[in-house]
């Protein structure tokens, strides 16, 4: 089904901006900065990196906004720009591999591991656990992390994610599934009854 531009809540602001009204761009920034930042933080695992990438995202949007063809929601286009900014950043800095190695080493040695709470809801509320989940997210391959962040953390639909990543919806589901599997393995030790028990897989 073709996209109906009138369904886009940002349509008016985008039109004003593309007509040269800079204030409309400012409003778009204010409206979306938080969501873009959250996505980038989940993707990059660092507030500083996320803030930089957020600036780059809107900079890129401002430069290349005229490429927005209104074939999808503006937010979809923006998320695509943000996801690409995050992926480019990771690739260019080569941090993913270094971080994976560091985390794998920590998990293998069990160094600095917290005592694992048994209840997942309590665990999720604990700052330590949040950090662990965030770390586990960072160990996923980029394409899996992007899919699971957009779906389980950002609440995007398969259709939106498919549009953002420019892949079929079936691939979106498959990536989410694989990501969840990966996280289950990485977080296995969180729910171990014995804090001294083996800490899950150690790649």
């Amino acid at each position, binding site marked *: 089904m073709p996209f109906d531009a009138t369904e886009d809540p940002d349509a008016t602001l985008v039109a004003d901006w593309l007509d040269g009204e800079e204030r409309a761009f400012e409003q778009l920034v204010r409206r979306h900065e938080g969501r873009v930042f959250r996505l980038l933080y989940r993707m990059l695992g660092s507030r500083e990196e996320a803030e930089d990438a957020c600036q780059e995202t809107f900079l890129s949007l401002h430069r290349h*906004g005229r490429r927005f063809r209104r074939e999808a929601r503006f937010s979809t286009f923006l998320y695509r720009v943000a996801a690409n900014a995050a992926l480019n950043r990771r690739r260019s800095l080569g941090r993913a591999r270094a971080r994976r190695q560091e985390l794998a080493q920590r998990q293998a040695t069990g160094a600095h591991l917290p005592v694992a709470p048994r209840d997942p809801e309590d665990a999720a509320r604990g700052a330590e656990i949040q950090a662990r989940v965030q770390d586990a997210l960072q160990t996923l391959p980029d394409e899996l992390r992007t899919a699971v962040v957009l779906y389980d953390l950002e609440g995007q639909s398969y259709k939106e994610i498919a549009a953002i990543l420019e892949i079929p919806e079936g691939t979106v589901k498959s990536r989410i599934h694989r990501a969840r599997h990966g996280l289950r393995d990485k977080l296995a030790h969180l729910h171990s009854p014995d804090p001294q028990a083996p800490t899950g897989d150690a790649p």
Partner: protein
Amino acid sequence: MSNPGDTPRSDLPPLEPWALELEASEPGGGDPRAREELARVVSVLRSLPEPETPPRLGESILTRVTEDAARPRVLRGVFGGPARAATLALAAGVAGLLVMGGLPQTFAPGQDSNPSGSLVIEVPAHALPQGQGFAAAGALPRTGAQFVSLGAARHPAARLSNPFAGASVWQRQMDRHLNQLQLDPHAFAQQLEQAAGRDGYIAQLARRAGERGDAPEIAMHVRRSTHPMADQIVQRMLRASLVERASRR
């Protein structure tokens, strides 16, 4: 991930049908405990609190965008993003050559300049007519001056501070330019006439002056100038003032 003796929990979010299908196709995927483990992962992910957005994120974004829009777009178009150090170095070198080759007026940062060190008319990318961007490099110095600088004003009022503390980055930039327009309307108009998209920018400046309430005063200053563009600016200012007054009624 599961504990021995655990029974499947009912307070976990149910997995989606497609997830159940995919899980069933995994080795040992029919195990209810495996499904529960996945459901726990989903539960943990969805219960993560949202990270707090940095307090001045929007400001920093807009500052960077404004700075970027003020850079020569030819260089950005040819050499790509600003984050690349090599690009920056190359762009700086080329910009230096262009300046030496005769930009209309170069920076004159000095004791009288504003806090940013120079007085610059920064016409934003979107104020320029569509299709003018990324022109041939040779067009930059003479005909497509998107980055036009004024000599530092010698008038003490060049140190005018922005009285509109709550204004956005974009508004503050326009306020600076309105100050310059009042200080030396002729010089400002001279520089502005070389900028692509000037008509749109004048309209935006006038609208801003109308909002501030000093459009008639600015028009009075500009009227002193004999520059051909002065009349256009005056008309815009007066019209903006009328529009603003009418909208307040």
